[in-house]
C-alpha cells in the first residue's frame, strides 16, 4: 500500500536552489535511504516529508491522513534536566512503557536510568532518543543520521532492528553516510 507519494519537490532557501524535481513514493514495509553530500538538503527533505517544512514547489501526498509517524532529527528532544526514565514518561502512555524499559535494558542504559540525562555521554543520549522513536510503535519512522555517534554493537543492533521492523510492515525513511546492511530503496540527492 502506498503511504506517501512526492511529485517534483523543489526547495530553495534565500532564493538559492537546494534540490529540485525530486519524485519518489514510499510503500508499506519499505525503506527509503536518502543519500547525498553535506549540505545537499537531506535533512530538509526529511522535514518536508514530515510536513514541518513546506516545499517551494511540488506536493507531498499522504495517502493516510492520520499516519502515526515518529521522527528523530538533529535535535533529539531530550531534556537534560530530567532522568532517562522521566524523559520517556513525558512521551509514553502505558502501552509504550514496557517496550521502552526493554530497550533501556537492551541498549545498556538500565544502570543510568535515574541519573540526569545531561550527565550522559553523547552516544547514550542518542540511544535514549532512539528508544523514544522506536518504542512508540508507529507506522512509519523518519530518522536523520541515526547511526552517527553509536558504538559498533549498537550500530548492528539498530540495523537488525530496522530490518526486523521493515519485515513487520513498518516504513522507514532515513538519511545516513553509512550504507545500511539491510536492503532498501535509495534516493540520491544531487545539487
Amino acid at each position, binding site marked *: 500500500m502506498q503511504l506517501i507519494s512526492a511529485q517534483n519537490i523543489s526547495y530553495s*532557501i*534565500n*532564493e*538559492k536552489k537546494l534540490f529540485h524535481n525530486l519524485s519518489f513514493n514510499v510503500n508499506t514495509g519499505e525503506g527509503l535511504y536518502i543519500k547525498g553530500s553535506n549540505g545537499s538538503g537531506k535533512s530538509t527533505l526529511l522535514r518536508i516529508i514530515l510536513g514541518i517544512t513546506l516545499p517551494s514547489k511540488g506536493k507531498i501526498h499522504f495517502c493516510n491522513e492520520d499516519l502515526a509517524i515518529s521522527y528523530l532529527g538533529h535535535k533529539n528532544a531530550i531534556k537534560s534536566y530530567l532522568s532517562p526514565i522521566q524523559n520517556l514518561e513525558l512521551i509514553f502512555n502505558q502501552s509504550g512503557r514496557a517496550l521502552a524499559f526493554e530497550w533501556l535494558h537492551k541498549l545498556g542504559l538500565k544502570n543510568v536510568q535515574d541519573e540526569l540525562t545531561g550527565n550522559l555521554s553523547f552516544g547514550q543520549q542518542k540511544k535514549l532518543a532512539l528508544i523514544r522513536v522506536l518504542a512508540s510503535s508507529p507506522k512509519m519512522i523518519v530518522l536523520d543520521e541515526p547511526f552517527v555517534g553509536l558504538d559498533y554493537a549498537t550500530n548492528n543492533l539498530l540495523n537488525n532492528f530496522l530490518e526486523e521492523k521493515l519485515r513487520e510492515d513498518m516504513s522507514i525513511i532515513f538519511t545516513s553516510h553509512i550504507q545500511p546492511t539491510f536492503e532498501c530503496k535509495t534516493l540520491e540527492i544531487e545539487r
Partner: protein
Amino acid sequence: MYPYLLFIGITTLMIGWIWGVLYAPEDFQQGNSYRIIFLHVPASIFAQTIYYFMSICALMHIVWRVKLAAYLIKSAAPIGAMITFIALFSGSIWGIPTWGTWWQWDARITSTLILFIMYLGILTLHGSFSNLEKADRLMSILVIVGVVNLPIIKKSVDWWSTLHQPASISTSGSSIDPSMLMPLLISIVGLGFTLISLGILSSRLYILNREKNKKWVLEHV
C-alpha cells in the same frame, strides 16, 4: 517612474515650504516658530501612514503569501523610521520656544517615540535571521500585532494630561487659517511624493539584493 515622482515631490514640497516659511503670516500666539509646522505635521502624518501601509502589506504577506509585500515592508521600514525621527526631532525643537522645554511626556510625543522604537524593532528583528523567508514572516506577524497595538497605545497615553495642541487638521473642520492651511496641505502632498519615490528607490535596492541570483535580475541589470 521614480524620477518624475521625485521631481513632482520636490517641486511641490519646495512650493509648500517656501510659501509656508516665507509668505504665510505670522502666528499671533506662537510667533514665527510655528513655521516648523510645515515640516512637522507632514512628517508626523507619514510616520503613521507608513506603518499602516506596512500593516496592509503584512496582511497580504501572511494571508496570500505575496513575497513582494514582504519586500515592501522591509524597504518601507527604514523610511518610516527616518520620517518618525524627523517628526520627533522637529517636534522637540519646536517645543523649545513654544513650551519652554524640548521634551514632555505628553501623549502624542510618547506614542510617536514608541512608534519610532517599533520601527527599529521591526528592522532589528528582520536583521537577526539568516533565513530571510522566516524573517519576512516573523516581521509581518510583528507588524500586524503592532498595528493592533498602535491605537491602543495612543488612546492609553491620551489618558495622561496632554500638553500638545489638538490636531490642526481634522475631518470635522480645521482650526487653522486658510493662509496657513494651503501651504501645509501642499507640503503634505509634496512630502508624500518624495517619500514614495524614496520608497521606490529603496525597494528596488532591496529586491536587487534579495533576488540577485535570479535570471530576470541579470537581464534587468
